[in-house]
């Protein structure tokens, strides 16, 4: 259950998979994303509500052939330049996009976690998203006759999230802004959770989400695995790193140098028990 990160990624993620690495500003599974880059995975459909710099890195490294998302940016800083380059210049490989709103993506995960084929919401009305995404349709309420938006369930092959801690049986505990992580895990075929630490007992924390070990395939201990995002109660968001990424991401050569350094790092992060 609790294994090194490279082993967990090798076991669970394969070329061509649909992979969601979720986290809403907080607890972003950055180290796991870097391990995907190191292993040279290709043709992935990457899914995330808020792809930020780790998705920029995965896209720039050529791991993805498609991105399903609702907001792709460097929060508080600006655009993702590797993502832009892939969309506007197909560099390093073409990137197909499927674009939603946050409400649409959130409800797609809810449907996926609920074993339903699709979700309904009041959304997308009048927007050009509808005409550019065949996965946004409308449905008539059989009771009231109201027209509502319909979007298909999202069921990733693999969901990866980062959490504060797990116990030795692989039960996982996270708190603070917990975003869409519970739904993304419950919607997935296979799941990997990286954690700050493993503890003997998960003492209750206000606002916690518990992911029982029966919905978690692998846990890997990766202290600092969400940096430069943050882990509530462990470390703060490194805003300077987000600002600094802008210059690296803007330039293909600077990015190539960054990538070379990542791949050359002697040991993958993360350990088992």
């Amino acid at each position, binding site marked *: 259950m609790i294994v090194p990160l490279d082993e967990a990624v090798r076991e669970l993620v394969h070329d061509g998979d649909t992979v969601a690495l979720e986290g809403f500003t907080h607890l972003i599974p950055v180290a796991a994303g870097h391990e995907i880059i190191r292993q040279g995975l290709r043709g992935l459909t990457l899914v995330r509500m*808020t792809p930020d710099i780790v998705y920029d890195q995965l896209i720039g490294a050529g791991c993805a052939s498609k991105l399903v998302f609702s907001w792709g*940016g460097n929060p508080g800083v600006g655009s993702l330049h590797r993502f832009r380059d892939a969309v506007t210049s197909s560099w390093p490989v073409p990137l197909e996009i499927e674009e939603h709103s946050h409400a649409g993506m959130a409800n797609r995960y*809810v449907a996926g976690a609920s074993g339903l084929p699709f979700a309904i919401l009041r959304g997308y*009305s009048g*927007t050009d998203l509808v005409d550019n995404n065949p996965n946004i349709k409308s449905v008539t309420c059989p009771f009231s006759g109201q027209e509502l938006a319909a979007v298909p369930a999202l069921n990733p092959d693999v969901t990866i999230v980062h959490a504060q801690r797990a116990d030795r049986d692989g039960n996982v505990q996270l708190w603070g*802004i917990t975003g869409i992580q*519970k739904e993304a895990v419950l919607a997935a075929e296979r799941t990997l959770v990286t954690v700050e630490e493993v503890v003997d007992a998960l003492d209750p924390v206000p606002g916690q989400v518990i992911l029982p070990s029966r919905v978690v395939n692998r846990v890997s201990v990766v202290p600092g695995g969400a940096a430069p995002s943050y882990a509530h109660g462990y470390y703060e*968001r490194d805003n300077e790193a987000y600002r600094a990424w802008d210059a690296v991401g803007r330039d293909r050569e600077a990015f190539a140098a960054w990538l070379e350094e990542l791949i050359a790092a002697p040991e993958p992060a993360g350990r088992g028990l």
Partner: protein
Amino acid sequence: MTTVPWTSDEIMTVTAARSLRDRMSCFVGIGLPSTAANVARRTHAPGLWMIYESGTLGTVPDHLPLSIGDGILAETADTVVSVPEVFNYWLQAGRIDVGFLGAAQIDRYANINTTVIGDYTNPKVRLPGAGGAPEIAASCREVTVIMRHSSRAFVDRVDFVTSFGHGSGSGDRERLGLRGAGPMRVITDLGVLEPDPLTRELVLTGVHPGVEADAVREATGWDLAVAEDLAVTPEPTDAELSVVRSLTGGS
């Protein structure tokens, strides 16, 4: 009263803050909208109930967050809920008075673009995309847009409708069954635009002190109509400026 000089960004922020009333619930976008909402809460609207789309409800941050999900938002919130809950139970259910949004591009009917400049399939510039904005624009009781004025940003028709404003005019929101009133004011560094009650086309209804209506028309990409009783924004007070500067680090 005002005794110190102020900038066009500062009067934009102060004007947007003044549009909020105490105890309103406000769905806050990051950037300029977040600055303005936090100024309101520290001046005339201490009971402003701020929601950020990361699920932080009733948050009272002691400094401006850089991102929509900074730790300070969670630490100071009444409660932190999941993303489906914030969109479904709070926004979609009609519990929010005002949406505070920014935009890359806006048009004469206040439709908002944050997706692409140019053609969608072959864009000149790829922007971050929708985020929570389409449903914020649809479901809040009303919407305020805060953005800097330029003829590149204020266009006749947006390249992409990310968030629906007033479509192509009167009756469009009703036809789509949208429950909120949509954008009721656009606050810029030059003045204030509001939809005409009949046509829903944006009209210049106010200018900031020292700004001529012609200068606003020049910075607008359509033939902007000017209200007969054009208002002039009251200058920021020293108290307002001091709050703005304490948040932004300006001087």
